[in-house]
């Protein structure tokens, strides 16, 4: 029997591309039909469509497909565990006393945005390398300071992401692959270094964190041993967090875990109480754990040739940069960072906003954060949407990912695993860019956070990456 005659015996299940009323007619008749919100491949960009076509030829497509499955496998197999605390100088590879790590792709002092400059200068003063901001500015411009992305040092940093030699850092290990990730401790909201604030209040908080908070947590973690962050994130997703912009549940879970160990440690009661109060008073404590957890989850994908899985998304407030698994960790694809579409605190507007900033979208890269927006209805309100929008955002991401999470599940999507492993080819093909939840920094250093919202990476980053894939493999 021919396939056509087989079809005559089956129930029709229809996909409709184009005129929506054809779909509505079928729905009216209770026919099984799906409407595709079709757009031309690559938004009608002929050159890109042609590159995609070549990469989709079976001989190459097979390799890409296998490589992407391997990347997904590694991401799902990751087991990020918090093992303790250290200082940047002791733990972060390649760190020197005159190194300043920053968020995003590489950027020179001249091109740095306001908040990053502020944080760099603040960091130099904090380290005692400059006595004041004026001196710090001179030093930063002198060429004596080594600037490098956190991402080049197994590190991630929220917002400006500035890390200097003596700062305390969380130490996370991906137990499956043995790779490390580091991140500073979260300073809280308001006038803080990561938003570019650099005054005495910022330094004294940083010093307190180094002298009081760090020793308490370090010893507590020595007593505790380790904390499985994957399990903790999975639970937090069931409790209304998406662990990027909302970390309330995860921070609470973390305090529950660390609390007895803090009580057991040898520091003074006064210090212990102050430390607990500090992390308890800062809902974003866990952001500096979810980020390195995502970072060490993603880093093992870099040595998979032919993989078109997105390995990094990151911004320095000037440029948005992405890296792709199969193209290696040295290759950034950048485009100017965009202004975040968001909700501004009273007194501020998008005119005050710095372009998109920070390494925190490593969470989205790993399938959490904005990709789990449906798990975090509270966040949707914060960014001015409805619960349905959150569900739509999360659902849309399945269009551009290779697979779905095995641990990170979304209750509102019937516990569907979150969209995981973004395929850059699908991003270009569909024009759907990854969704990112993010905070918004003031464009001038020293002001701090002015809002929060939703942003997507510039398509241009993905087009450049596609071009490179096509050049190398097609």
């Amino acid at each position, binding site marked *: 029997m021919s*396939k056509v005659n087989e079809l005559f015996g089956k129930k*029709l299940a*229809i*996909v409709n591309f184009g005129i929506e009323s054809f779909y509505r007619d079928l729905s009216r008749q209770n026919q099984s039909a*799906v409407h595709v919100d079709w*757009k031309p491949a690559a938004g009608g960009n002929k050159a890109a469509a042609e590159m995609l076509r070549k990469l989709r030829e079976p001989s190459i497509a097979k390799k890409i497909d296998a490589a992407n499955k391997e990347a997904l496998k590694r991401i799902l197999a990751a087991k990020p565990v918090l093992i303790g605390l250290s200082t940047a100088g002791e733990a972060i590879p390649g760190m020197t006393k005159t190194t300043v790590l920053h968020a995003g792709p590489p950027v020179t002092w001249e091109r740095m945005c306001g908040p990053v400059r502020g944080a760099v200068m603040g960091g130099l003063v904090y380290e005692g390398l400059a006595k004041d901001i004026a001196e710090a500015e001179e030093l930063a411009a002198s060429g004596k300071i080594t600037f490098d992305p956190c991402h080049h040092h197994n590190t991630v940093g929220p917002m400006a992401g500035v890390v200097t030699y003596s700062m305390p850092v969380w130490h996370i290990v991906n137990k499956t692959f043995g790779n490390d990730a580091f991140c500073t401790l979260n300073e809280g909201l308001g006038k803080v270094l990561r938003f570019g604030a650099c005054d005495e209040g910022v330094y004294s908080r940083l010093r307190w964190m180094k002298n009081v908070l760090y020793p308490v947590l370090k010893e507590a973690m020595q007593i505790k041993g380790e904390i*499985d962050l994957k399990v903790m994130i999975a639970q937090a997703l069931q409790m209304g967090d998406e662990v990027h912009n909302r970390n309330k549940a995860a921070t609470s879970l973390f305090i529950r875990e660390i609390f007895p160990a803090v009580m057991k440690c040898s520091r003074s009661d006064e210090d212990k109480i102050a430390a607990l109060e500090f992390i308890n008073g800062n809902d974003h404590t866990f952001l500096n754990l979810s980020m390195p957890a995502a970072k060490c989850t993603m880093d093992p994908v870099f040595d998979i040739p032919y993989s078109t899985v997105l390995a990094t998304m990151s911004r320095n407030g000037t440029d948005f940069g992405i890296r792709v698994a199969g193209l290696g960790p040295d290759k950034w694809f950048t485009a100017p960072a965009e202004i975040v579409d968001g909700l501004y605190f009273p007194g501020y507007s998008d005119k005050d906003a710095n372009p998109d900033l920070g390494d925190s979208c490593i969470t989205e890269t790993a399938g959490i954060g904005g990709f789990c927006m449906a798990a975090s209805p509270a966040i949707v309100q914060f960014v001015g949407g409805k619960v349905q929008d959150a569900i739509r955002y999360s659902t849309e991401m399945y269009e551009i990912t290779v697979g779905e999470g095995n641990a990170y599940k979304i209750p509102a999507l019937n516990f569907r695993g979150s969209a995981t492993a973004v395929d850059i080819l699908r991003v270009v093909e569909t024009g759907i860019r990854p969704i990112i939840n993010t905070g918004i920094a003031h464009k001038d250093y020293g002001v701090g956070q002015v809002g929060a919202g939703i942003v997507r990476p510039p398509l241009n980053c993905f087009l450049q990456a596609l071009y490179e894939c096509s050049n190398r493999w097609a």
Partner: protein
Amino acid sequence: MIKLEVRKNAYYDSVTLMLISKDIKKLEGVEEALVGMGTELNREIARNIGLETPGFEDVTANDFFVAVKCKDEDVFKSAAARVEELLSRKEESRCAAYYPSTLDGALKIEPDINMAVISVPGKFAAEVAQSCLEKDINVMLFSDNVSVSEEKALKEFAAERGLLMMGPDCGTAIINNVPLAFANVVKSGDIGMVCASGTGAQEVSCVIDRLGAGISQLIGTGGRDLKPEIGGVMMKTGLDALAADPKTKVIVLVSKPPSEEVAAKILMRAGSAGKPVVVCFIGGDPGIIKSFGLHAAVSLEDAAYKAVALSKGSKPDDFLGFTMGLEKAQALAKEEAFGMAGGQRYVRGLFTGGTLCDEAMKLLIGDLKHIYSNIPLKIEDKIENAKSCKGVCHTFLDFGDDEFTVGRPHPMIDPSLRAERVILEGNDPTVAVIMADCVIGYGSHENPAEELSNAIRAAKTNAAKAGRYLSVVASVCGTEDDPQCLSASRLQLANAGAVVLPSNAQAARFVKLILDNLK
């Protein structure tokens, strides 16, 4: 026996696990079961229901465990397998408001997709169609502006895989009684159709329905299928499928007259279908058709009459008359012509369906000699700029032709241009009759008869004011079960003063009767 399986550091939410526990307890051979995280509470419950077993002391709150009291090892294995199955079950979240952006996304929602309806812009259409065929999905390609070489490649690829590749420019199909794009709600029956024309297919299938018979399948091919470059690939596939289809007793082929070479191939194949085949090559030579032992139709309506006769086992006669009878039709035509002014001599045909326009011209050309048109029968009767110029003498316009559809929907979806033209042409003092079609069914405007009726009223009023009587002759292509409803549509047109005939062919013949009165 009590069996325990522990997975270190695996988290699942407790509600899911409680549901799974309940499910596992129902398995045969299972006495008691608990699936959960190793919290203090869960371990206590396990103790209380008699699931305490060595190994429990090492279970921590971060661990996931399956504890089962069961008959034997095999029962436990199947219980563990069931737990795995339930944990990894993918709950596709169907969200009404969400439309996927790609075929892959659609397949995640409905994995059994077997038909694609594609109406994206022509330059992208071939690629979308190809991606569907590659996934063994049959295609109905509504888009036009697809190149001949793309069409050929798609059809050959589909033929190799045994799939339907209907189109490009295929507006009508009914597969498994589901109307796709522009199609009517017709009864299910034993007449199978393969059609190279959309409105032609609608007209034949609707008349079949009205005659009390029904359609098994209606396969579209797209207008170019029988051109020598394509060679009728799709019509052959369709013919073969209907020949092999046990539900199909009679086959109807509808197309504009193809080239002789392609016609011979198709007719040869039809001749060996083993079933009666009615062929309607609109305006084509019936001799060739008959020479292959097939039934030649003289009009779309006639094709329906012949197919129904064959399906009932009776002899198919040519249907050339009027449902109301010739005498009554003649009387009515005389009445229509009665109040006309001296200069009124011409007919203007204004159509939303291209094949209906073509058929009407072919039925009238013998008498009228010249019919000016944007889709003329004779090259010298071609109208350029049909959109902006006024009609001259006998003029027939197809509003679905490219010139009218650039940047706007097909007139069957948006009949407003045609309605405006009814008023415009009605103002011409040389016009005696306006002929119009009204195509209903899925895909079409929600009430095309209303729009046409309003225009008819206005045109008639204008003519009356100028001391003329303007006759409007119309037919409705549709069925009672269409969303717009055949009788309701006819009634609207009749109430506006149109003479409504049961078919396009009868409407054309009726126009001739009126014009005869004016000679």
